[in-house]
């Protein structure tokens, strides 16, 4: 079974400051990480492979990481290798610079095809920066695979998957045939730390091949975006609720009274 995990490298949000008044994002520390959704996807795939404490997988399964991005995304792929992936490919070309979601989907789908297709594609529910949440569903559409989104538990057999996803107030467990695309909820798959020796090997021994537009046989027309970004803006400020001021005792009494009024907490003794 071949499991392919498309991942995205993002700027570490811990190194950023957002100034709403200036409508600007400041980079205090420029460090790139695997986005949390992508990292959870790597973890979910590796558990299917049967490695780590929570593995429920079987031998003979391979996990391949893909990332479309600038040359520095090589680091994200090597980290994925260190975590336990069997192979990794970087999809990088200056012609990808203006890619929108439709172009990104095309590039990823082409890479999947070049790898001979996948039995299962696991990716994050949404990226850690733009948060569009579209790559999984679009990839399923492009490849003609089944899809299950927002998955928090996943079991894979040879002929299909059983995935648990959020459903209203609770959860639903659904079955899907293979091949399939699954997007995972980041909070459901706590990523493992990479093994020390694999970190060294990932940089010193293993290759991360780079596939450019020519390698993927994608011409100018295929890489023309449908959307172009004109400007970035901040969402409107959140409406804050009531602010209580005063000495601690009074504030506590006022908060309790307000919560009772809203029927969020019950009456004293009741």
């Amino acid at each position, binding site marked *: 079974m071949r499991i392919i995990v498309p991942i995205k490298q993002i700027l570490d949000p811990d190194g950023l400051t957002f100034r709403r008044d200036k409508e600007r994002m400041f980079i205090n520390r420029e460090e790139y990480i695997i986005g949390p959704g992508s990292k959870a996807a790597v973890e979910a795939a590796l558990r299917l492979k049967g490695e780590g404490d929570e593995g429920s997988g079987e031998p003979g399964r391979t996990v391949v990481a893909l990332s479309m991005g600038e040359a520095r995304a090589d*680091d994200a792929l*090597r*980290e994925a290798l*260190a975590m336990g992936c069997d192979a990794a490919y970087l999809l990088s070309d200056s012609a990808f610079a203006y890619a929108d979601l439709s172009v990104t989907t095309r590039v990823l789908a082409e890479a999947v095809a070049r790898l001979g297709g996948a039995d299962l594609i696991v990716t994050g529910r949404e990226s850690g920066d733009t948060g569009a949440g579209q790559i999984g569903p679009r990839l399923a559409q492009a490849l003609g695979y089944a899809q299950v989104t927002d998955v928090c538990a996943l079991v894979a057999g040879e002929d299909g998957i059983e995935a648990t996803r959020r459903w209203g107030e609770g959860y639903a467990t659904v079955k899907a045939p293979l091949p399939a695309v699954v997007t995972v909820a980041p909070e459901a798959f706590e990523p493992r*730390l*990479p*093994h*020390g*020796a694999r*970190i*060294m*090997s*990932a*940089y*010193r021994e293993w290759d991360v091949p780079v596939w450019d537009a020519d390698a993927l046989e994608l011409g100018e027309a295929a890489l023309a975006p449908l959307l172009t970004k004109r400007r970035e803006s901040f969402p409107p400020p959140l409406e804050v609720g009531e602010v209580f001021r005063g000495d601690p005792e009074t504030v506590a009494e006022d908060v309790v009274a307000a919560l009772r009024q809203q029927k969020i907490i019950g009456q004293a003794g009741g």
Partner: protein
Amino acid sequence: MDFSFPKEYQLFRRMARDFCQNVVKPRAKAIDRDHTVPHDVIREAAKLGLLGVPFPQKYGGMGAGETGYCILAEELGRVCSSTATVIGAHIGIAAMAIHLDGTEEQKQKYLVPLAQGTAIGSFGLTEAQAGSDAAAIKTTAVRDGDHYVLNGAKVFITNGDIAEIMTVMAVTDPSLGAYGGITAFIVETDTPGFSIGTLENKMGIRGSSTAETVFEDVRVPKENVLGGFGAGFLTFMKTLDVGRASLGAATLGGAQAAMEASIKWAKAREQFGVPIATKQSVHFMIADMAVEIEALRSLIYRTAWLIDTGQPHILEAAACKLFGSETAHRCIDRAMQVHGALGYSRDYEIERGWRDQRITEIYEGTNEIQRLVVAANLFRPHGVRISS
């Protein structure tokens, strides 16, 4: 000249920091209070390959050399000196002696389980009357057929009561002295005649165990002679030379943590209506910490580079231990001053750091011995021989 860390080391530091912050740090206070070794933390470290950081991958190690090991020691030193000591004695001296001087068979049999963390190691040099004067040891090893029979006792042995494998220095020919008369052995601690004596009740690093180990007719196969017969003193001194760089790295982590805590507290603590971070007296203390830490960091990683590239490093490694422990002393002391009475409270990390720091000026060669090592290396080319 390029002072940046290669990318594998950058990723390794992120992994080590994540492990230290999320697994090691939460246990630091309790293991100090309860005087217990965090076996669960050590097992988790082993799973990530952290008990074999400097050793080649073919012996179950991580293959990250002294540079990688210093990164681990620094990150451990930031959060828990006890855990740093347990892992430091295991890697830096116990397994290191086998790595440096073991035969291929010894490495397969002993270095592999140590590097993988399926066995814990200890290093047996110090005796009641022999510490700084290492050549004054009294433990003996007498040949009996295919075995050597060991008798004596080692004291202040880190991991002494938890180790499965111990490297031990013993006298094989009292007439020959340090060079020729002392041999190193690898001892499996389940050998009959090996027992644990007194456990030390220490001021600091209380989450590490320090034990007396007793040898009563302990029979060690002759294949377990480590390094050349009669060359045990050299094996042990060579091991300590390397170990000193990583000891310095752990003190670097401790000093850095003390400075960061001081900055954070100075911003939060208000006196005379303003945060004490606005006071010049506090600026000067923190600036002095920062400068010394920066100098120490350069010294540590340059020395690690000397070791990894096979260059002479004895003077520099002694300097790492000496300057590192004394820098950490000054930094944690200033941090306590910045924190005021809160720093003196058992409830906060500064007090533990202050107690934990003190031993670093004593163990693995007192700072007085380090000064002798430095001086000896300076005077030797001038034909002046310095002995203690």
